[in-house]
């Protein structure tokens, strides 16, 4: 393996912010706890993308696409994530399309 888990960590501030939102106010967080969750999310990304990659391969395309990721979530028994993710995804996708069509209309 060229890089290990420790080389690519998500920014501590972002992770801590999400953590705090999930907990009731005025909760203390042990330093090790923040680190543990940070490592856990890195591994989560690895795990999910490896699964999504396998799904993409079995469907004969080289690129990991959004449907691959959704299928991977189901395979990993993480279907609970799917509704929220769908909602957030269609939100950003609509924004992206809006920008693209606006720019296209300018030319």
């Amino acid at each position, binding site marked *: 393996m060229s890089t290990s888990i420790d080389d*690519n960590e998500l920014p501590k501030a972002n992770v801590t912010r*999400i953590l705090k939102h*999930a907990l009731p106010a005025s909760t*203390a967080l042990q330093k090790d706890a923040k680190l543990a969750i940070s490592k856990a999310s890195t591994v989560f990304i690895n795990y999910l993308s490896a699964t999504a990659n396998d799904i993409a391969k079995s469907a004969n395309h080289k690129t990991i696409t959004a449907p691959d990721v959704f299928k991977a979530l189901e395979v990993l028994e993480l279907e609970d994530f799917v509704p929220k993710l769908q909602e*957030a995804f269609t939100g950003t996708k609509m924004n992206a399309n809006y920008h693209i069509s606006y720019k296209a209309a300018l030319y």
Partner: protein
Amino acid sequence: MSEELSHSIINAGTAPGAQPVFDLAKFWQEQLSLADNFDSDFKNHPLPLARIKKVMKTDQDVKMISAEAPILFAKGCEIFISELTRRAWIHAEENKRRTLQRSDIATAISKTDMCDFLIDIVPREEVCEFIS
């Protein structure tokens, strides 16, 4: 001001009675209503997409990634972090603590079937190499 300006821009260069290709007035109306309804706090940034992509690429098998995939991963990670934290918090509350500790997270992971892949990442014992 915007009404007259936008009307003159729309009608310039189009034959009378022709449909304007791009409705500028409508665009500005929508932008204004979007701005009015914008309620999210500016501090709530998503996780950096480039970093996520780097993590995905630590797997040698993964070659090409579509643009939408890291966006999904960012939100998925957010949900994952929230979920794991809440499960760990249950343990902290059981022990009447207001501080979330690593042991709480370790317990939550061991109790959740879907988190089997994390068993070695957050060991329950005191010593772990990656912290030092």
